[in-house]
């Protein structure tokens, strides 16, 4: 048992974090939300680091590491709010040609629970992947009709509403669909965990600088306790996200479904609550478009709906506790 990153894993996370800070600074993240704002050259640079193929075997062109390493990478990406179809690209790497090196950009929709056919990052994609209980289908994005939302809730995640459920060519069976849902859920949760840490960092820095009543507002216990709670939520979420990642690699240690659903619950709570705290700590400025606090909150709202709802996750954990 060793549930702390190895030196190699810490170096991997640092590499992704440094790259994100350098090539996906917040102005770049914001620009990805503009019409035609998707920057293919930066996406290719991200792919060139091995980001999407991290857990794909080397003989299939990947880095050949474990799924936990993909989880750690997505956590770092989430902290920096790196935009684009990160989960779709990671799932499709090694399955759909060209995704692993960034030359083919995918997007993904899970038809699971009905509702509007809302899809993230569709307009910048080359292929659309469609997941349902029966399996996975694929179709050229250019052959699919949809209406772009003028004001997506997350300004850095463009959204399109598809006109009809798309007709696809078969790509994978029901078993692969089940695996993609599990893994896609966990990768989104890893980004949520990272997001929760990014918003906490932003809030803490502001609380140290901003002065009212003649002293930094971070010296007041009312804020200290809010921010300490944010840090704790991140550590709790990170614990379950890491444990779920290792459980996918070592299925004999426990139920993957329970670990993945638990990770979703703790990570979604950490991200949404910490981002709310971040807005609150910024005071009136937190209510402005200009301050980045709302970007964390809105991205968290996008991620927490991916591959199943919070209530679905709670039902899964409860059922698996009751039947163990």
């Amino acid at each position, binding site marked *: *048992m060793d549930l702390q990153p190895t030196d190699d894993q810490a170096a991997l996370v640092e590499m992704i974090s440094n790259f994100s800070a350098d090539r996906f600074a917040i102005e770049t993240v914001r620009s990805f939300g503009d019409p035609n704002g998707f920057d293919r050259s930066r996406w290719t640079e991200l792919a060139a680091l091995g980001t999407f193929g991290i857990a794909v075997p080397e003989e299939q062109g990947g880095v050949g590491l474990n799924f936990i390493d993909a989880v750690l990478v997505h956590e770092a990406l989430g902290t920096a709010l790196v935009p684009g179809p990160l989960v779709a690209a990671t799932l499709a790497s090694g399955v759909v040609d060209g995704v692993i090196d960034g030359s083919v950009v995918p997007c993904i929709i899970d038809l699971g629970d009905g509702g509007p056919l809302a899809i993230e990052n569709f307009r910048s994609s080359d292929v659309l992947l469609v997941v349902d209980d029966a399996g996975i289908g694929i179709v050229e994005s250019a052959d699919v009709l949809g209406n772009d939302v003028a004001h997506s809730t997350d300004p850095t995640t463009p959204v399109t509403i598809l006109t009809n459920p798309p007709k696809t060519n078969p790509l994978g069976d029901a078993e692969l669909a089940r695996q993609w849902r599990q893994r896609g859920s966990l990768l989104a949760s890893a980004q949520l965990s990272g997001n929760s840490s990014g918003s906490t960092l932003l809030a803490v820095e502001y609380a*140290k600088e901003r002065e009212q009543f003649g002293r930094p507002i*971070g010296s007041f*216990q009312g804020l200290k306790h809010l921010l300490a709670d944010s840090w*704790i939520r991140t*550590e709790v979420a990170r614990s379950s996200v*890491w444990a779920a*990642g290792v*459980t996918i690699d070592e299925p004999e240690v426990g139920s993957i479904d329970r670990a993945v659903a*638990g990770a979703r619950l703790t990570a979604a709570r950490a991200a949404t609550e910490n981002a709310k705290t971040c807005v609150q700590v910024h005071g009136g400025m937190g209510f402005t478009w200009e301050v980045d606090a709302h970007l964390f909150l809105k991205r968290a709202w996008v991620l927490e709906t991916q591959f199943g709802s919070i209530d679905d996750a709670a039902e899964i954990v409860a059922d698996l506790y009751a039947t163990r």
Partner: protein
Amino acid sequence: MHLRDSDSDAVFRSEVRDWLRSAVASMPTPPLPDDWPGRRAYDGQWQRMLFDAGYAGINWPAEHGGRGATPTEHLIFLEESAAAKAPDVGVGFVGQMHAGPTVIAEGTDAQKSHHLRGILTGDHVWCQGFSEPGSGSDLASLRTRAFRDGDDYIVSGQKIWTSHAMAADYCEMLVRTDPNELKHKGISWLIMPMNLPGIDVRPLVTVHGSTEFAELFLDEVRVPVANLVGAENDGWRVANVTLSFERGTGFVGELLDTTNVFQELIGLTKSTSRNGKTIWEDDSIRREIGIIGADLDALWAFTKRNVSQGARGGMAMGSGSGFKVAFATSQHRLGDLALRVLDRASLSMDDLNGEPTGELVHSKLHAFAISLGGGTTQIQQNIIAERVLGLPRER
């Protein structure tokens, strides 16, 4: 990163499991909660069995009579002990978890040879005299005085939250040896035998009726200077050296208990009907169970992270505080759900109809022990805010 046992850990787990199976079966029926002579005898019998089998002081260094096990082996031992329903550390808690490690780190050779073996065999029971009525969160303001008089200190004052004082032979005491120094300076760490004249022990009954704690009234108790651990006026540092012994396993016993209570609560929702359907069939109850279950799983993973970090030399700053706050929150949330499920069965602290209803009420009240004991949730939040996040102090 791994969750599976290494080959050597798997061997250790299997050895521990085999030993526990026969050892637990040989224990008599446990005494009643308020039977302190009985509890001391029972806990001592179990500790002696651990000692004879080489499991006493499992995380203590081998040179001081412990097993010198790794933090991971310690965690395995606790997991297997819970699975085997083995007795917990009981009245041995202060000696094994705090006083013993302090004597190992700071004691003289004479103190080590006099005290360590007795703690490991279960023959010596310790209690803790740190908190005072006027010094809780602000422990360093403590006022129990120790005047030097020849080869003795003369100790007078009052202590509170002294666990197992009724059964104890020794008390680890923080006293003020220099009244001219404020706060952390001027405090000393003393070993006080509990059979000395001038010690009055009065039970302090908790909200759930436990008699585990007591108040100590100290009236000119003569404690030999030879019982000073570390230097005079250096007791604050001495009291904190055990923090470096902490390798992430401190709350494993409590977390195991909570996980068991949670399973009992789930069982109760399935066996109890209301308005023609089981409580389990209520969506809001079931989803709350899911959230609490996810939190408990996360706390297990958090524990494993802390143990992993502890095995690399020491826990990360704030991780103990963060774990404790999160655990207290879950414990309260579980207790709140229990009261919803119990409805009017919660009026009894005794079990009703063969179901663990009274135990669930106890569990709700016990949540305060987690959110108050060993530094309140708010003190832990301050520690995280200032030492981890680097926020400025209030004054």
